[in-house]
């Protein structure tokens, strides 16, 4: 690890978090607990029991221990080919 990387801003992880069946009805409370461990909440998707947000890379693992969380995944990105491509 170079000195520059060490001194740079810490990487931010974008995450999607599914809430377990017992806590789907109390998404707000789960979100509060996630904020307490450092998650900056983007969206509460009540119907599907999902919370999306961002957190410092070094703290991302802490999310998994939060009560009501069933799964934490890094948000994937998608890229279509350019419009002129024949295969889409």
């Amino acid at each position: 690890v170079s000195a520059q990387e060490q001194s740079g801003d810490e990487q931010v992880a974008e995450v999607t978090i599914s809430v377990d069946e017992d806590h789907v009805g109390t998404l707000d409370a789960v979100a509060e607990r996630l904020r307490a461990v450092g998650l900056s909440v983007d969206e509460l998707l009540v119907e599907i029991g999902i919370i999306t947000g961002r957190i410092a890379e070094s703290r991302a693992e802490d999310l998994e221990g939060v009560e009501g969380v069933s799964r934490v995944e890094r948000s994937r990105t998608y890229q279509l080919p350019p419009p002129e491509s024949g295969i889409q």
Partner: protein
Amino acid sequence: MNSDLFPEPSGDPSAGPGEIETTGNYLVVLAEDAVEEGVSVLRSKTGIGVALADAPDEAVVTAEELEESDHVLFPSLGVAVVKADPEQQDALALASHEESSVLAVEPERVVYAAEQVGIEPDLEAAGALAGLSPDYLRGYRDAVDGLLRSLGSSSGQAAAAAAVDESEAAWGLQVTKTVSSHFSGRGVRIAVLDTGFDLGHPDFAGRTVHNQSFVAGEAVQDAHGHGTHCVGTACGPDEPTRAPRYGVAYEAEIFAGKVLNNRGKGSDGSMLAGITWAIVNRCKIVSMSIAGRAPRGASPSLVFETVARRASALGTIIIAAAGNDSRRPVGVTEPVSHPANCPSVMAVAAVDSGFAIASFSNAGINPNGGQVDIAGPGVRVYSSWPRPTLYNTIGGTSMATPHVAGIAALHCQADPRITPSGLRNVLAQSARRLPLSSIDVGAGLVQAP
């Protein structure tokens, strides 16, 4: 199922069904990056030991080996031509399903080089000159032909597509029996989550298009084209301003969600927000022509599987593209992409108008639900495109997916009380069986009720 409906599967347009003559030999296509492994799998699983044939300067020796061995491998092609007894044929078929290094096995056909008769004497002469046996040259030619035939998706696809009369309706609407369906998707809500939609497209004048952007700083208006094309296929009009017809569920209620930006980029977060929007709006169908490459052997996302199950419980089916990572002409078949690889998401592969699997279409080769569920028309697909272009013909599992979504809406209209799992069943059960592996096309080609 009427097998006479199937077009001739070989690349030779002159040979009708049932006229395929085989040599008794088999072509074995090995994974490009695992030829050595493939050779050892063949030896251990089928007892077939292949001799190496490659560079012309090694070929004199190899040709002699060939005479003795009955089997020959062309490493630069990744293709072996082998003789197999019935027991070995079964073992070969099994290996092609179970071993990642063995991609395909098929009978070597006698007739697929149109000029075969004219070539025979040349093989003798050329062989004599080069010090190669005619058998060697014949084997090499057949291996190359086998590869070219699997190219069907490019050369053969274009030829087959030209044979379909699209003056009144795009070929995809014909082969799925959409054109003769009595259903229009009336009142059924379909969400297409993509790059948005050209809200001013003349073919949709007077049609309500519910819309929402989940991309920060960008309106729903589609500056890419992908979304407008997919909406067109799923929900385009019965009588567009200019023929042919290209849309399936022409009276469905359109929900165009923008989850990919105008450069075609998006993330899980925006896709999940779009799915939620569709559920809140009681869309029975979500069409997602979005695919993120899944590594070989990877398990599906538990977050998306959970989401798809919850969506299903709330009355919404999620249909997604299997992905376009395969390069079948060179022997590369890649697994179904995320999120189509989730068991509760319906994964759609692409076929061409000759009913061959598209060269790029991904396959069900990953564990834990990474199967292809169904296939849709996905090569040379004509649909709407943002103004001023208005129409475009492109291919991809992205194009196959909205065919399935639109036809799902027809089924919903036919049976308004159908559940997402019931819908999934009816789509699979009514699919037209194809003479292709379910690994590639699942239940077969989607059919309208």
